[in-house]
């Protein structure tokens, strides 16, 4: 019975992952992260991703502030960082928006930057929600699997 639950959860997780890959939200880099996670490093993914969330929120707030002040160069620098970390965890769509955003800052295009920032915030939120969902399923699966052993 417990094993059955774990399998269902595993299927859920895979379905979600497949969906995210298909949508281009995540790419193989994320897959690599998952593959590197094992008994030796059980929290690999969640640790990196949590740091990513933490930093990204700061970056987004900064970006909004800088845009108000029309500090395009500084925005470019922040965006480089955002791009770097997003690509390191495999957040493909977020990275792509950053690239477009960066192009807009290079041209000091305020309207373009505004649009890009909104899109970025949107994509980032979506990613965050989906990844939270993924981690929840993971946790549940770990719980279910964990209960099995003492029995």
């Amino acid at each position, binding site marked *: 019975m417990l094993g059955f639950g774990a399998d269902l959860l595993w299927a859920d997780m895979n379905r979600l992952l497949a969906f995210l890959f298909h*949508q*281009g939200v995540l790419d193989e*880099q994320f897959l*690599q*992260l998952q*593959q*590197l996670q094992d008994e*030796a*490093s059980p929290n*690999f993914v969640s*640790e*990196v991703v949590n*740091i*990513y969330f*933490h*930093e990204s929120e700061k970056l987004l707030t900064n970006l909004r502030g800088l845009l108000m002040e029309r500090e395009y160069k500084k925005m470019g*620098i922040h965006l*480089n*960082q955002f*791009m*770097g*970390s997003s*690509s*390191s*965890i*495999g957040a493909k*769509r977020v*990275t*792509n*928006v950053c*690239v*477009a955003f*960066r*192009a807009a800052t290079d041209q000091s295009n305020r309207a373009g930057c505004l649009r890009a920032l909104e*899109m970025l915030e949107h994509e980032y939120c*979506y990613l965050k929600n989906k990844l939270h969902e993924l981690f929840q399923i993971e946790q549940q699966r770990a719980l279910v699997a964990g209960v099995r052993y003492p029995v």
Partner: protein
Amino acid sequence: MAQVSSFEKVQYQFPEKIRVLVVDNNPTDLDFIKQICNLCNYEVSTCTESTQALNLVLERKDCIDLILIEVHMPTMNGYEFLYRASKEIDVPVIVMSLDHSNYTVTRAVQLGACDFWVKPLRYYQFKNMWTHVLRKSLKENNIQTKDYVGSLEDGERSRKRGKDNSEFGSSSVVRDQSNSSSKEAEESKHRVSSMKKPRVVWIAELHSKFVNAVKKLGLHQAVPKRIVEEMNVPGLTRENVASHLQKYRDYLKRKSEMKETQTQEHTEMQLPNMVPGTTESRSIRTLADPSVYGAQPPSNANVSVGAMQQSLIHQQMMISGNPASSVSRNIDYAQSSNPNPLGFLQIHDGNTLNQYTATEASISQQLQNSSLTSGAASSVSPYAYGSTSPILSLSLGLPNTSATGLSNQNSSTDVVDNTKNEDH
């Protein structure tokens, strides 16, 4: 015998427990890298600032085996760190960044980086990075296959070295090398420098002597040994002449074929040789003489495609790196009175291959992706060769900043597409 055992010792020291210093102001990346290094069993220390890292490294010079550093950082960027660190210490430094434009990579290599990694980073890169430390220690230990059949004298010197090496505990080879007595250190340095092949610069005079010798012997009878004798230049070895002769022959062939064909044809470029690691592609790399041999892009060429032609053009494409902006110079070997292009002709030694191995996967990828037609050489974006020939751009002095621009354009269209497909 001690010689063999020291080599084995070197082998078995790695890859466990090399000490890596990672410098990156991006916390996500830093954590990512740290975790992977732990997975690979390296001892990793991290810094978010170059100044911090520099102090750490300079304070205790022997405490780090390898440094990984991001190029673009706010307070002190990777270049500056590289410049300062390479003056003081002799540790392999790998530079990494999201930005992999020609200019960035070239600059890094110019400043002494032993490798350049493009972000996002992959596990296999970390898996293999100990090779940089190994290479350095092998160089210092002067352990080469040659030594196994070396003279008695060589054997004695190495045996003496072997004794020192046997003092290792669990410490790495590199660390002990630097701890060894100054006398040994001097000796090893001397040996390292004498082991390196000196570069031969084929200046105009030398080349004209070469051409005369070849003419005298007749092109088909011209063997390197006899050419050397004819030229009678002290210090010129048969090997130098041999490689130069090969290039010369290729040049002549190219020239005669260009003269034959009149019309410009569109050709599909076959790139059969771009398999990473094959000997042929390696030899192409060593022909990567920037200024002279490859300087004529085939867009000027009225070339018909033959198999030999393809590989020659292919070489040129590899070599020119930035075909769009290369000057079509008429290099006339027959006239040795043309000093300019020959002035900076150089034969690169084996060390340049290191850059190639690092990027060969991406090269083959990019070259396979781009189908090249002749006349399209000038329209082939320099970015396609973005990862190749850092040495090249160096010699040509060409910063190539269009790379990131191009990728930006591509990606922004992706964004548009994605928003159309969104269904959440």
